[in-house]
């Protein structure tokens, strides 16, 4: 029976697809968002359950500015407006709730993320956000016109063609966005590394451990938490922008709460409060997702798993169940994540 299975499985395709995704743009954007969340949760101890709000702010801020053609519709200014929008979101979450207990921040972040998504979807904002259709408009999309063109065509230094071999073959657009995405991941990680080894980072970690202790030692905790929220938020908004350039459009579907929880999974999987955690976490997350999906698909297609047990339309859900089980097992055996510090995870906080 087992021999039979191996004969049916295309191992090359299985690994090829999984590796392709784990180094792809999706993985880069998730890693980038997780770097932002890592500053929030891993280092500062802020429970941000609205990561996707920052991603949406970045993506929509950029897309609206560009499609409206404000200030000549420069893509650089459009990106800047996306980042500014993320700062505004950070302030509107932080100013009212950072003085309160940690759980209020968690609630506020979930709420703001949903308020943003539903507002962007609403008919009232149709002219601005494209409502449920997103940006750019359907006509533009049918004509293959997008804000991403400036980045992926005009500013693309890579010549037209196909690069790489095996399953790791990418066209010039994808390759360029991958380079941009992973470069941003590296820059953001470097920034966090630099910050966390400074006295600023020491205060940030102290706030995670005990806010009152930091206050008693003369640190303005509120100000530091706000700084952390803004910096992490801007990093996450870059993730939204890169994703928008990759897809060529923005839609509220991309910013459902589940994206927030995927990014939490990425961070916990890789290891919070570590520089490599978000990167390793994201690559592993996508590898597992695609590997299990492809494996199940091949098993169903070859008839090794009877249709009565699993239909191919169910595979997408089953892979998430598998992901959940794996995360639970990891939490039991390796609570610090794949690359987190073991000693830190073993310290009982209270």
């Amino acid at each position, binding site marked *: 029976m087992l021999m039979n299975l191996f004969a049916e499985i295309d191992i090359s395709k299985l690994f090829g697809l999984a590796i392709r995704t784990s180094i792809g743009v999706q993985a880069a954007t998730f890693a980038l968002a997780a770097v932002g969340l890592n500053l929030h949760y891993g280092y500062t101890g802020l429970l941000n359950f609205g990561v996707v709000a920052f991603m949406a702010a970045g993506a929509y801020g950029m897309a609206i500015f560009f499609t409206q053609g404000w200030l000549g519709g420069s893509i650089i200014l459009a990106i800047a407006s996306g980042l500014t929008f993320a700062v505004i979101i950070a302030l509107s979450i932080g100013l009212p709730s950072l003085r309160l207990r940690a759980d209020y921040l968690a609630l506020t972040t979930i709420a703001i993320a949903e308020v943003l998504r539903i507002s962007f979807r609403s008919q009232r904002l149709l002219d601005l956000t494209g409502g449920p259709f997103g940006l750019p408009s359907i006509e533009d999309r049918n004509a293959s016109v997008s804000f991403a063109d400036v980045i992926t065509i005009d500013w693309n230094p890579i010549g037209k063609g196909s690069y790489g071999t095996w399953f790791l073959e990418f066209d010039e657009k994808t390759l360029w966005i991958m380079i941009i995405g992973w470069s941003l991941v590296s820059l953001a990680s470097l920034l966090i590394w*630099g910050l966390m080894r400074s*006295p*600023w980072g020491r205060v940030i970690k102290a706030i995670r451990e*005990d806010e*009152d202790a*930091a206050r008693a*030692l*003369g640190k303005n*905790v509120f100000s530091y938490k706000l700084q952390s929220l803004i910096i992490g938020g801007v990093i996450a908004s870059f993730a939204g922008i890169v994703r928008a350039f990759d897809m060529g459009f923005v839609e509220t579907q991309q910013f459902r709460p589940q994206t927030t929880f995927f990014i939490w999974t990425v961070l916990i999987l890789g290891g919070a409060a570590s520089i490599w955690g978000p990167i390793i976490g994201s690559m592993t997350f996508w590898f597992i997702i695609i590997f299990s999906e492809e494996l199940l698909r091949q098993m169903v297609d070859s008839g090794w798993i009877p249709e009565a047990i699993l239909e191919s339309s169910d595979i997408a859900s089953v892979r998430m169940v598998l992901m959940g089980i794996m995360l639970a097992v990891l939490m039991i055996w390796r609570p610090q994540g794949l690359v987190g510090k073991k000693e830190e995870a073993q310290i009982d906080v209270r």
Partner: protein
Amino acid sequence: MSDNKTSELGNVEPTPGSTKQDPILTIDDVVRSFGGLRAVDVKHLEVQRGTITAFIGPNGAGKTTLFNLITGFDKPDSGKWKFHQLANAKSWTTDLSGLRPHQIANKGMVRTFQLTKSLAKMTVIDNMLLGAAEQKGESLRNALLPSRWRQQEKTILEKAEILLERFKLSHMRDEYAATLSGGQRKLLEMARALMSEPKLILLDEPMAGVNPVLVESLLVHIQNLRDEGVSVLFIEHDMDAIMGISDWIVVLAEGRVIAEGTPSDVSKNPAVIDAYLGSAIAEELKDV
């Protein structure tokens, strides 16, 4: 017990709200109620500079609440309190009422907590470094430019090593604070507070949960602080410790100051014995 300090306080009337020669902290009409309960209701209180002053009183007397109020961790219903940074200089007086905890700490009045707040997932040395005040590298502007803070970091590090040595924590330097014993955490918290060179240090039950051997060394540390010119205000339940090292004792009951004076004044004060100490401890005090 140091005689000079006691003599400074020798002329002071042992009555609630008495005027001190050179107060570092004065509290006026501070009231804090929880529902119908007046947890703190202090009409007037002065804390003499350069002395060890103890707050004592039965559970629920409002000692910790008063600490929380004057350090900004809780807000009073009304009242004012002032911090006199320099000796005998009325001009160097800061109104602390309404300031936030970190602002009060930065004025030179630093507190510790009853339940120690050692930062568990940080090393002992990082705990210490955090304590230093006015660090350039703590601002986001300079954080990414080590050239701007490396020199100061070195100075702070030296200071931290000296304090760790003094508090016998040097061997734990690079361990996580979580690995320290309860008594060592109390020491760490005190040492950390000293990193900012406070003028007044407020210790909330520094001896609670500490083994007797460490209590001895804690008492010595507190007396050394006083001798170096730091004013100490502390809350304690351990009567031997209080009577042994305090220059002045303030007795609180039901939120009010019911007595103050030198240890011998207080132990003879019938109001204290009646209202607070109770007969059993009164017996003990006769032997002291």
